[in-house]
């Protein structure tokens, strides 16, 4: 298969999968796009939104559109790591001999829905760390490889904070994107009512297999990126750090810790997927602009003043982008030399 066909196939697959999800999910075009970008970039997605907005439904629909195993874990305060990873159990064979056998937990699935992930204790939350980063889990000294592709989609509720355990920074950093699911618009709400209160439900076709997903992931990494675009990604990440010399005032004032290098990776990988999904063979500045809020909002840790003043991270990212682009153009504007 030629490369042009591969790219065309990807564009088509991307479009088909999105269309299948949107058979069930009304609106949320950007959220669905970003979820698919995360899938093909090989990252994990954290969806944040108030209850009833269809986060879980979106993930379930996506899993239905893929020929992949799917498991859902409802995180609760009494959930234990073994409930996620699995545990060794004693089995007795026909000869009466007993031996330990690893009983796999629900994490051994291609698509894992960690519903209300912030309701479990940090100990349980951290059970996902190794699997999300390494693609393996270790139980009693034995490592077990997770199925590939392994795609974690977690949800959390931002308003019911009582009895929850906010995700630690290390855990947050392992999510490629953090997506905000907002209220639907009026027309979208009407559409939701029509679809969910009338007889008959739409059927989601399986449009992509696991190996196809892996192939597309490889293709995505081949997308070239120009030096100045790559530099812009680095500048964006640097501008989230309060100690950088060219950082904007808002960062200096409200941010305690900026993004890790994973943020830059997320920017570039997300940009590549978006470019390829757009039928382009290169990453543009616009791609970085599009993925920057999703890639950075959970990686910027506000300081006390930022929390007290209720600083909006998305607004801050907008200013960070402006500063980074100004810094990128500095000395390169054709008339200003």
């Amino acid at each position, binding site marked *: 298969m030629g*490369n*042009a066909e591969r*790219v065309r196939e990807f564009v088509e697959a991307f479009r088909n999968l999105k269309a299948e999800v949107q058979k069930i999910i009304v609106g949320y075009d950007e959220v669905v796009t970003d979820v698919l970008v995360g899938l093909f970039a090989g990252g994990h997605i954290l969806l944040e939104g108030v209850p009833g907005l269809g986060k879980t439904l979106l993930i379930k629909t996506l899993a239905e559109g893929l020929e992949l195993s799917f498991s859902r874990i409802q995180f609760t305060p009494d959930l234990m790591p073994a409930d996620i990873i699995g545990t060794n159990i004693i089995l007795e064979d026909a000869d009466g001999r007993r031996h330990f056998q690893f009983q796999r937990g629900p994490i051994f699935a291609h698509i894992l829905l960690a519903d209300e992930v912030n309701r479990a204790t940090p100990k349980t939350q951290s059970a996902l760390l190794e699997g999300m980063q390494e693609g393996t889990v270790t139980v009693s000294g034995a490592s077990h490889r997770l199925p590939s592709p392994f795609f974690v989609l977690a949800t959390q509720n931002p308003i019911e904070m009582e009895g929850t355990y906010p995700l630690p920074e290390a855990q947050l950093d392992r999510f490629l994107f953090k997506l905000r699911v907002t209220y639907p618009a009026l027309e979208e709400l009407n559409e939701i009512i029509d679809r969910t209160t009338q007889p008959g439900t739409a059927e989601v076709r399986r449009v992509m297999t696991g190996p196809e997903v892996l192939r597309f992931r490889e*293709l995505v990494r*081949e*997308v*070239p*990126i*120009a*030096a*100045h*675009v790559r530099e812009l990604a680095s500048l964006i990440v640097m501008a989230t750090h309060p100690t950088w010399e060219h950082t904007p005032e808002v960062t200096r004032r409200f941010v305690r810790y900026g993004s890790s290098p994973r943020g830059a990776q997320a920017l570039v990988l997300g940009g590549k997927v978006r470019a390829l999904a757009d039928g*382009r*063979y*290169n*990453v*543009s*500045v*616009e791609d970085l602009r599009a993925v920057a809020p999703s890639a950075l909002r959970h990686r910027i840790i506000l300081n006390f003043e930022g929390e007290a003043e209720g600083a909006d991270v998305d607004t801050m990212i907008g200013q960070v982008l402006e500063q980074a682009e100004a810094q990128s153009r500095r000395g*390169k504007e*054709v*008339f200003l*030399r």
Partner: protein
Amino acid sequence: MTGPGVLERLLSQVRWQIRRRRAEFYGLRGIFYGVILALVPLVLKEVLGPPAPLMALGLLLLGGAAAAAFGFWLRLSPADVARVADRAFGLRDRVATALEWGRRPERSPLVELLVADAVARVQGLDGRRAVLRRRPPELRLLPLPVILLVILALAPPIPLPTGRLPTFSSAEEAEVPEEREGNVLSVERPNATRREPLQRAELTERAFSLQQGGTGASQPGDLSAVFKDTALAAQRPDFQSFLKKGDERLRMLEQVDRLPDLKRDFTQSPYKMVFQKRRELFGGLRPDQVSPQKLRELLEEMDRLGRKGGNWGYETGEGFDALEQGQTDRALEAMEKALSKMRALEERGRDGRALRGGREEDRRGSRSRDRGAGGDDIDADLGEGQGLLPGKGWNPNPKGDPTGRLRASPYDAGVEGESRTGRREGFDTNLVGKGASVPSRLQYLGVIGQYRKMMEEALAREQIPRDYQTQVKEYFESLEEK
């Protein structure tokens, strides 16, 4: 045309547009500064003559051309050109990425696709301009110097100042430099000797006019004398020592309480004189070794001083008696008592005398006259700090001096008031009137005098800055004027 060739052609087109726009931009900027420079020869038209307008035009054109050339040849990298092209034609960084990755030896399959895609899109571009014209910010101000330039070009030449200062010296003085030609030393010395008598005569004249009671207003003759005073000019004061002296005086002024009363010569104070003689008398000797003769001389001196208004006559007399009886220690004791009275008198005078007004002095003087010459007032007999204020020490009149208040001048006016309720202090007993049914009356000047006296004592007792003392005294003087 090959793929990269298409991209290169696009780049060269965009590069040319950028250079042209830069030349326009910097050329306009250069014209602005050229116009400003061109004003100079037009201002100097009188000096430069007919070529001035041509020079102005040349500067203007030169400024514009030089700046345009500078802008045109400014460095321009291909990557920047590619970015401009991408932005101008909405190519979303295709050209820049294709150029960068297309030059690499190892080209992934997607790079080939990228280059092909970029070429295809570039070929489909219309011939629109990639770079828009930009105007320098100075362009808004350009009309101003241009108008000025036109006005100066059309106007007649501006007369320029000659550059020489007007001469204020007389004809004789103007000739002096001519005399100094040649050997400077040999000429300057006779000049100095020649001016000296003239200077002395004028200074004498000035001093004489002042002695005659002149107002000090300057006269032409005086001024010329001052400015011709070469003796003053020859003096080179040490500026550092001048500053140092000034600093010392300022420091001294800050210590108000230590400022000397310049109206009085303390070196001539009787107490100080006697005290020094006493020190000479003792000269490290024990009391029994003191010479009776010298002690008698000292007592005589003190007695002489006491007759001029001192109150230590009794002590000096006691000292004489003791000396006649050969009791030197008793005579010394009497001398010490007399000396302490001298000191108390002088201290009292230094504290209050300079601050008291004439009216109070008059009153005090009249009072002492009433009491007679031989009536040494009791205050003088008291030691320092005792009995000087009403109600203190040995003062027999604890409620002040009511007679002084009541004995007001015929011009005094009564101030009516009402007897206030509540606890009454001693001063209420001094009120004039027949009781509560009649409004009490206080003599205005009497009350003022009482407060004035308290003010003077307070000023003498407390460490108050001189400026404040002056203000307080002026305030009381203004009250008396009413």
